[in-house]
């Protein structure tokens, strides 16, 4: 019996590739990530179309936290809306309050006293630190560095204790009102803020030493999610996300409000626009915020903390309301009719921790805005996701979302 031998031949490269692609042909996979996924930081949902682990298409689904803030604003007085601004970027309510108050003040033409301005700057910068601390902690936790979260959350807790002392609330502060702030700073509070700063900076160095040269962290963030400067402008990115791409835009310096021009600080800029640069920019911003806080406290002017000519806007002091006729009438009018704001249109943007938070107010006079549009920085920042996520791995999504540091409260409004 003769042995039969089969003839083997080596196919050429093209036919091998064709055979391989037939053998390993992948099916497109639809993956719905969120709305309750730990790395989507809230209720963002991404509808992903995957080829293996590579994202072919990303369709963010918003609206899970939509409360109709703009509709609500049209139905209540300007003062009543202040607590709603707490709930936009609920990680930095102090900054939102101040920006909303300044927007309405611009429409009214009120100048608030210097002390009020300084307090607003002080609280906004503290809010920035607290927001960046949470953003940084959650970001690093998503990419696997749990220790940082422990440190930053403890520090944020210290800040919240200070907020509570100042405003009476830890989370939803409603501190800045139209024409002033609710109350002056308590005795010795500024010293405790300085104490926090002294204690905070070395910890920030610790955090940096844990991350900046950490092989795992750098591998998971560097060259991931690169946004060019042109794209940042085209998609309306603002805040640290835009600055990480090298867009030199910081409204505190470029369109100063509330007396920001009096303080020296540097604007942190990135070069590559990747996740790692966004981390670096936030770290530097926290240092600069400490720098601003120290200058504000050193220069804190004495004087009133609410505007004299805002008598018909901001509620009078309670003790006066109960004893003086004039104040009682004021109190009644403001509560029932709302502050009388002149007709007109105003658009004001301030540098909130997440980016430029804008309020467009169209007033027809009276106590209620006719139309109020809130420009949430997270909304604009996230609008680049469909472009950014194409071609990246699924495992890079937590890095990208973490580095964006968005909050759905102001995205969905």
């Amino acid at each position: 019996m003769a042995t039969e031998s089969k003839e083997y031949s080596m196919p050429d490269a093209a036919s091998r590739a064709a055979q391989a692609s037939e053998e390993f042909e992948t099916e497109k996979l639809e993956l719905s990530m969120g709305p309750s996924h730990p790395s989507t930081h809230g209720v963002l949902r991404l509808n992903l179309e995957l080829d293996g682990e590579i994202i072919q298409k990303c369709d963010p689904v918003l609206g899970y936290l939509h409360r109709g803030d703009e509709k609500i604003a049209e139905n209540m007085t300007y003062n009543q809306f202040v607590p709603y601004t707490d709930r936009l970027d609920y990680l930095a309510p102090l900054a939102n309050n101040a920006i909303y108050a300044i927007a309405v003040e611009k429409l009214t033409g009120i100048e608030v006293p210097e002390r009020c301005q300084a307090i607003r700057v002080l609280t906004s910068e503290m809010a920035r630190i607290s927001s960046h601390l949470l953003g940084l902690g959650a970001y690093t936790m998503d990419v696997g560095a749990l220790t940082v979260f422990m440190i930053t959350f403890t520090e944020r807790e210290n800040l919240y204790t200070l907020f509570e002392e100042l405003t009476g609330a830890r989370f939803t502060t409603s501190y800045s009102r139209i024409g002033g702030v609710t109350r002056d700073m308590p005795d010795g509070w500024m010293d405790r803020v300085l104490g926090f700063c002294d204690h905070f900076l070395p910890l920030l160095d610790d955090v940096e030493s844990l991350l900046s040269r950490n092989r795992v962290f750098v591998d998971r963030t560097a060259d991931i999610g690169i946004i060019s400067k042109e794209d940042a402008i085209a998609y309306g990115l603002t805040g640290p996300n835009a600055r990480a791409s090298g867009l030199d835009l910081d409204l505190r310096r470029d369109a100063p409000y509330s007396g920001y021009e009096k303080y020296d600080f540097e604007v942190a800029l990135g070069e590559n626009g990747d996740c790692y640069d966004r981390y670096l920019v936030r770290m530097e911003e926290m240092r600069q915020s400490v720098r601003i806080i120290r200058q504000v406290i050193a220069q804190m002017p004495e004087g009133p903390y609410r505007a004299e000519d805002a008598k018909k806007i901001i509620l009078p002091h309670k003790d006066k309301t109960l004893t003086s006729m004039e104040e009682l009438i004021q109190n009644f009018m403001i509560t029932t009719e709302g502050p009388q704001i002149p007709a007109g249109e105003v658009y004001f943007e301030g540098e909130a921790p997440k980016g430029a938070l804008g309020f467009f107010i169209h007033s027809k006079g009276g106590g209620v805005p006719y139309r109020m549009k809130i420009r949430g920085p997270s909304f604009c920042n996230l609008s680049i996701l469909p472009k950014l996520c194409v071609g990246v791995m699924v495992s890079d999504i937590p890095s990208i979302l973490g580095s964006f540091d968005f909050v759905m409260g102001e995205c969905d409004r």
Partner: protein
Amino acid sequence: MIAQDLLVALQGVSSEVAERESADWPSFNCPIDSLVAVLKVLRDNHGYDMLVDATGMDNGVDASPRFTVIYHLLSTANHVYVRVAADCADSENPVAPTVSGLWPGADWHEREAYDLLGITYENHPDMRRILMWDSYPHHPLRKDFPLAGHEDDLWDEEIREETGTKVIPAPMAGGPFVSKSSNFEAQKEPRAKDESWNEKKEKPEG
């Protein structure tokens, strides 16, 4: 100063561009058919390179024109803003041209205006709702939409059939209470802002 120069430049694009009343930044009304051209000139020739906000507003149920689209541009070099507004021609089905060709970031802003105000943007790449669910029948920021909302079907058919529940109007208890600013004392009493029902008008069934 800036406003005057811009006005002259924009009138070169369309003679109907006029100044719009504004408490802060230069602001212009422009006819809707030259809106894209005006914004393009602002972007290319005057350095307003970033679209920070695009929105719309409802001027009232009986107003004509009823809907206005409003754009805010920022110059990232000079840090000044400009506002451009254009009235939509049709009050029933307002239509505006899309600017997502000039700024891809306008995509979501326009979807939001479509969702909440019902302004359709022509040639928009992806004209879907963004905040409300896709099958939602109303446009909540329109002035004839009550604050409490309407009774509607749930978005998920399975849950709807299984549970028989609906989206119900919010329990407003008549509020929020605000009073009209008026010289007539009796009208200064705070009343429900939402007047779909009050002492004189029965609360609708359901």
